[in-house]
């Protein structure tokens, strides 16, 4: 496991007030190393700009018909 991953775990956990002891940092860093390896191909994907997140916030259902109102 890399020193940088252990440092990452140590710094980020401290930033969010998650107390981890040395052995937890070691084990969590090992998990993240394994995940990083697993998702390398995913990280290397080249997304086009229009490939947005799978679901996008919609403020309200698109109206079938706009209400016919006169001011």
């Amino acid at each position, binding site marked *: 496991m890399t020193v940088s991953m252990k440092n990452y*775990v140590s710094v980020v956990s401290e930033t969010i007030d998650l*107390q981890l002891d040395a052995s937890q940092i070691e084990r969590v860093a090992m998990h993240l190393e394994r995940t990083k390896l697993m998702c390398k191909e995913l990280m290397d994907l080249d*997304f086009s700009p229009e490939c947005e997140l799978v679901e996008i916030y919609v403020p309200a259902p698109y109206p079938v018909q706009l209400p016919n109102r006169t001011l």
Partner: protein
Amino acid sequence: MKHTIRDRIEQQILTIERLDPAVNAFTFRSFERARLEADRADALINSGVPNSPLCGVGYGVKNLFDVQGVTTLAGSKILAQSPPASSDAVLVERLHLAGAIMLGCLNMDEFAYGFTTENSHFGPTRNPHRLSCIAGGSSGGSGASVAAGMLPFSLGSDTNGSIRVPASLCGVWGIKPTFGRLSRRGTYPFVNSIDHLGVLANSVELLSASYDAIQGPDPLDPGCAAESIHETFTSHKLGIEGLRIGILGGYFSDHALVDAHSSVEMVAKVLGACQTVTWPDATLARAAAFVTTASEGGILHLEELKRQADEFEPLSVDRFLAGALQPVEWYLKAQRFRRLYRQKVNDLFKDWDILICPATPVPAIEIGTEWLEINGHKLPARAAMGILTQPISYAGCPVVAAPVWPDSGEGLPLGVQIIAAPWREDLALRVAHVLQVSGVCRVKLPVLN
């Protein structure tokens, strides 16, 4: 002499009391409620009111479903001090209305993060077909209780394979419907963007009847996309003529060992399926599902992790911690990938109606197994049991897990996934029915004392 539903439920209670000490599927037995519901079902029948196929049928729920008057544990001792649920989960309410009889709450991996139900707080659930082996998870109690003959059916949840893995390893039927099909209101979440609920059962008829009974829109659940009920029970008779059925190769073949290949061959033979099909981006989908699960699951429990990490399940706490610390880039890329992935999977189903592949890479492993070797790769056993289910649930497709008993399995089952396009549970259940009639897929009662 005429036997009442109450008589039958009393027999079932005796069976649970006799078998569960060995299997450890139940974390709570709701026998008083069951007796009341049985008397109500008897009264309904005596009054001549037409009843549903579930009237008087016993069931249990994974202990992440709210059951009125019972504390929802989600497999955790942290929640054990929480107040009892004030009402039933929506699906439990619907089963009550159908006349089904709640017999208890069932063991699971803590917060559903696991595929083995090796729960350190409540003990491991044991596989009824070999007690030294895992039942699969995270709905392990749901699978083992049906396999042991303690319950005809049960409710479970499936984020990455948690219905299909125990169904495969325990040799029972399971259905993980389309993502968004069923209301999740009144259940303890794990990963909002992938959580599904579903059923495990001892026959296709019961699987279908219980699945039909729990369907329906729920305007109060933002995750429920269903606008109507797509009834499946009467569609079995349509058979499989005309259905285009393929066998998944590539990733799904490469991550399967000999018993898994045997199970698929047995099923393919009955269905007349011979063409191999490639599922798009399965490796990427598994990675994306893993990252999504870890991030959402870790953040869901972050406050408890800060306060009492040492009270978590020792087998999964490090995964929760790691998930809470994952870089946001990983999560966002997984979400962008998921849009592309959905399109590719939906395109695949323009050419196919049903695709089949194994549900697990191997049959049930011994409790405590740490590593699995799959085709030259040494993998953590607890995570690897879901390697063949994860890519499918990430797409949200409906799947029926069919119980198969490969000759090479030394008496242990290994299930096959019957996968359909989103919202086509009916097709998967039609195929399941044909497989059941053929005798190749069936539930076998174990010899337990």
